[in-house]
């Protein structure tokens, strides 16, 4: 094994296979309209020339992949403290990343990479939202060695090798392991709403296609004659049960594929997380970079003693809120003990819930107006004025109204802010109850908002902006919020702790 990174080196030779796969995928994506035409005209085309064409196509891609492999080199420039990657066949590029700009080094493995026994190494830098460098095929040991070198600033010291050894031994004894049972529990209890929305979108798009197909193929039958009330009821029950089962199965499969074999190991004051059934991901969690920790749990999960942790680290300044969500580290299915160990590790102690703040009942007015009164007025108005047929679905109105009212009421009842000297905990959510945990010295900006009609009732909203997202609480007593804002500002301004 060559651990001398100061000289340019190539990826593993088997990496050509990965390159080949990637290039093939890109070509197919670019050329799919032509491919489809070919498939449809398969009968008319000369089979032999098609076969030769395909053969030439594959050989060209293979050659291209090989040249790509030849021209891709990487090394550490010890003098300038830079990691350098050279790439390109005709247009050559040389990318130099200063080692102190490296935020994170991840080692991942996709299915193809797993089959041929190599790993991908991705280097995240400060400055842009996307991964800047990815080495697609290197052996695992080399990846680990390179990773620790990149993390330790690339200095050729014994410490680098030591940390590598530590990492390897650390692999054997996991700090926390999420069992398959926990994943099963998480799978059947989470993400109902999202999966339902996906299913709905899927059903709507496919039903449109079916309609078109029926029309196109000239079917013309009257449905009304065959349908009885009993059939409708049976059909509805069947659909509802079917959808519920489908949601459970999809969630279960998704959770297990994504998080199978979740293990967390300690390493030099940070945590190393690795997980995944088909694509293995590994990432590093540094406690000092953590901005907000979100603990999520719904009613079922409470009964089963599991919760999800979302850990948001400081991201790039330009990154949008969406990107920040993406970069959040998710740890599913933790029990009480595991949660406490993780929080203890990140914050140095278990966050305590301090003084409780409740929102004002006026918090429910706007959502009621927006989700209940306006949609129902539109419905009744258009049914009355234009489309009496809309009355056919009037049974859905109380169902919708009850659902919305329940969401608004529970959203209000669960909304709380807990303030202690060292922690701010915001609780919220109707079904999935989130607890966002934040340390005051991570705050960058405090902003308070009040609409002019809220002045009389002395209510308002407070937002705490951090490098890992924003926490918003309100409507609540504005005088109290202002008092708290003054306290948080005092804390930030007198603290010696850095936010990262």
């Amino acid at each position, binding site marked *: 094994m060559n651990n001398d990174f100061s000289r340019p080196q190539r990826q593993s030779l088997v990496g050509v296979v990965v390159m080949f796969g990637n290039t093939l995928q890109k070509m197919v994506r670019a050329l799919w309209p032509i491919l489809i035409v070919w498939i449809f005209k398969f009968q008319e085309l000369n089979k032999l020339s098609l076969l030769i064409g395909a053969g030439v196509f594959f050989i060209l891609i293979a050659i291209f992949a090989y040249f790509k492999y030849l021209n891709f080199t990487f090394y550490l420039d010890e003098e300038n403290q830079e990691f350098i990657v050279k790439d390109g066949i005709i247009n050559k590029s040389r990318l130099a990343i200063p080692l102190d700009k490296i935020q994170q080094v991840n080692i991942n493995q996709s299915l193809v990479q797993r089959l041929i026994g190599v790993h991908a190494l991705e280097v995240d830098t400060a400055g842009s939202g996307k991964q800047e460098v990815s080495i697609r095929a290197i052996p695992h040991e080399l990846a680990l060695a390179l990773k620790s070198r990149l993390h330790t600033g690339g200095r050729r010291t014994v410490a680098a090798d030591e940390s590598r050894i530590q990492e390897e031994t650390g692999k054997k004894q996991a700090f926390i392991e999420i069992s398959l049972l926990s994943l099963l529990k998480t799978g059947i209890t989470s993400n109902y709403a999202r999966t339902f929305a996906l299913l709905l979108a899927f059903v709507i798009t496919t039903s449109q296609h079916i309609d078109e197909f029926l029309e196109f193929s000239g079917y013309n039958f009257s449905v009304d004659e065959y349908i009885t009330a009993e059939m409708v009821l049976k059909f509805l029950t069947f659909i509802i049960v079917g959808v519920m089962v489908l949601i459970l199965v999809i969630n279960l499969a998704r959770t297990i594929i994504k998080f199978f074999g979740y293990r967390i190991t300690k390493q030099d004051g940070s945590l190393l997380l690795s997980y995944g059934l088909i694509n293995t991901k590994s990432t590093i969690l540094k406690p000092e970079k953590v901005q907000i920790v979100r603990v999520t749990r719904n009613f079922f999960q409470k009964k089963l003693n599991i919760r999800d942790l979302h850990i948001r680290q400081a991201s790039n300044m330009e990154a949008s809120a969406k990107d920040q969500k993406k970069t959040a580290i998710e740890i599913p299915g933790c029990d009480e003990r595991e949660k406490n160990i993780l929080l203890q590790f990140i914050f140095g102690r278990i966050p305590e819930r301090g003084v409780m703040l409740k929102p004002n009942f006026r918090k429910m007015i706007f959502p009621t107006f927006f989700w209940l009164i306006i949609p129902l007025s539109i419905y009744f108005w258009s049914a009355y004025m234009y489309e009496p047929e809309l009355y056919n679905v009037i049974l859905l109105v109380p169902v919708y109204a009850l659902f919305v009212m329940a969401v608004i009421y529970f959203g209000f009842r669960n909304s709380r802010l807990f303030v202690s000297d060292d922690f701010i905990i915001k609780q919220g959510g109707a079904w999935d109850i989130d607890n966002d945990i934040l340390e005051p010295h991570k705050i960058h900006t405090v902003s308070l908002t009040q609409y002019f009609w809220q002045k009389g009732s002395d209510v308002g909203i407070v937002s705490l902006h951090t*490098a890992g997202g924003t926490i918003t609480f309100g409507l609540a007593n504005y005088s109290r919020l202002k008092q708290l804002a003054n306290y948080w500002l*005092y804390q930030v301004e007198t603290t010696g702790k850095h936010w990262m």
Partner: protein
Amino acid sequence: MEDFTNEIIDTASLPRFEDVELTPLQPSYINVIRLNIGITFGVIAIVCGAGFYFIEELQPYWPYVAITYTAILLLTIIIATVRFRNSGFAFRKHDVIYRNGAIALTTTIIPYNRVQHVAIEEGWLSRKLGLAEVDIFTAGGQKSDIQIPGIDKDQAERIKQLLMGKILKEEADEQ
């Protein structure tokens, strides 16, 4: 650790940001706002006028369009004026306060030890009037930044110097 003390903090006696006297924006900045509104609504008026002139079918609708146009114009002017009057800023010893908004009044406060960088921006009309905008950025994302328009140009430069000095001092303190 020997000089470490840990007295109880009386939260009621902490300095209150809401009692701070805010400096209003430069009065001439209202002209910049008015000109911007004028240009936007002028363009819309020309487009509508051309539409009525060239497309005959539209002509019967002109009273509705005219009423809507006037209503939106008036509303925009009122909101912009209220917004201008509400805007104000203050630089305390440890943080900067900026208040703005018409329908919703938002007060944003950034402690100096969380400021990432400061920029000064000038539009062409603002430059003619000797005005500038001070942009204060943090690492907390777009919404957490403060942009104070309508500041006298020399003062904007002084503010920038003040903030840069504070940032450097904070950095030195932390090391």
